[in-house]
């Protein structure tokens, strides 16, 4: 008798499927510091999303990482990525992984908004990445 409501309640507790978000949206505008960000990107603030891109280290090096940049371009030759062309990803505490060659899909909660350090904007998109495949 209680089975259906319990099942529905359980289903309601399950996390939503991650929303696919592309760099076409994240980087689809010319970013200037202090601007009002487009609705398309603020709409995904604090949403669990999946984004396809290339893993890149914040500084050149080797070995596994806990944090990385997710960018739209494998090679920096085509110009260095602007702040709205980068998702700063952090893996869970204590989790590290090698930088993967080729396209990966990062899934996790995305935070949209200017993050300042020493008075300058250092990040626009941050992700608590749960999985990278």
């Amino acid at each position, binding site marked *: 008798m209680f089975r259906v409501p319990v099942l529905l309640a359980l289903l309601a507790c399950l996390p939503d499927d991650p929303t696919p978000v*592309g*760099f*076409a949206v994240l*980087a*689809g*505008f*010319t970013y200037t510091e202090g601007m009002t960000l487009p609705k398309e990107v603020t709409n995904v603030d604090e949403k669990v999303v999946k984004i*396809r891109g290339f893993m890149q280290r*914040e*500084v*050149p*090096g*080797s070995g596994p990482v806990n944090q990385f*940049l997710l960018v*739209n*371009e*494998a*090679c*920096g*030759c*085509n*110009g*260095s990525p602007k*702040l709205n062309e*980068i998702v*700063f990803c952090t893996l869970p505490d204590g989790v590290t992984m*090698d*930088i*993967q*060659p*080729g*396209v990966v899909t990062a899934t996790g909660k995305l935070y949209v908004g200017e*993050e300042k*350090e*020493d008075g*300058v*904007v*250092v*990040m626009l998109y941050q992700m608590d990445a749960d999985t990278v495949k």
Partner: protein
Amino acid sequence: MTRVKPLRILLFVAIASPLLAFLPGLQDPDGWDKDVERACTSQRYGLRLAAARKVAAGGAAAVPAIRAFAQKNGVNAVPAALVDAIADQATLEAAVLELLREWADNGDFYWRASAMRGLALRAPKLPPAAAAELGKFFVPHYDSASWLMRVHAQLGGALLGDHNAQQIPEPDPRARYKEAILLLQHEKDLPDKRMLQLSLVIHALADERTFQGDPWGQRFAAEANKALKAWLGDQYPEIPGGDTEGSVRAIVAAAKQKSGQNLNVPEPRKDPATPFAGGIEILSCKNGDLFVQWTAAGEVHFGLEDCAVVRLPAEAWTALTSERAQLSLGANLGVIVCDAMRLSWLEPKLHAKVAPASLPAAAANWLQHLASEIEKTGQPGLAAVLRTGLEQFAAP
């Protein structure tokens, strides 16, 4: 007459002095060293970017500090973000132009294409004699091995009205798209609007091609869309979500209206049906890019479109396949700054990225063997292209 009290003057000086330090043009010359250091070495990308913008805004005053950094650490320690920031600045100061020119002319400098972009964008703003002189500098780079170098050199030529800049056949679709997008972005500086290649930008919108999983076509589609959005301004249409073809049709209609040109709605460009079993990709700002893919049956394709195809004899291919299966490679070989090689195949599954001088001998030998077999089929040109690309990646 009212006299200003000395105390107030002192108070003003005390408040204003630290603020003046933030004005790039008024900065103490020694102060640039710290900013350049920060732009080049900060652990945080955002801080590097902000410092790079500040240094670039400093113009000629910051150049000695940049030169000193490059002298001490090597020119390739100067990051792309700093070169891009300088390229984006409008300053026409001689010291900045000279620096950009040196970088653009340095075949060993990773970010020379960005430096070339800085020169190209400044060219139409220079006095005629200086512009003509810079125009001569662009010409030999119109057919550079690096696709972005030739695109930016051709952009500079086009912005100076040189029609020869667009006469060289361009085999790389990325270069065709990029130049067309840049011309649209800088239309106001283009002396001859007939040099605009709007139909190419429109075609980029419908490109869905990939190379070994890299959706390069979609990347240019997004870039073209962004450029068209800026160009169309208020005339950019409402885009229905999830309907790519409908969106492209709406954008083309708006572009037709604004340009008065007869633009066709492009057919989506997709990958050929060929089932590729593996491939190698070389992205090199130094020597140019290389794209090679093969089928399980030994058909080797060179390029991103209209590929040159070599069919290797079954016996040779079987030997190559068995040799390749023995290779044991990690996912990341060496420290990549710019140039990189990617190896990708299905059987046995491998996806590896390789920095210059980091490809183990066994893998380098296998690629040399592949080049030899290609040569035996009567394609020495393609074999040479593969060998040249391989050169900088083979471990010493």
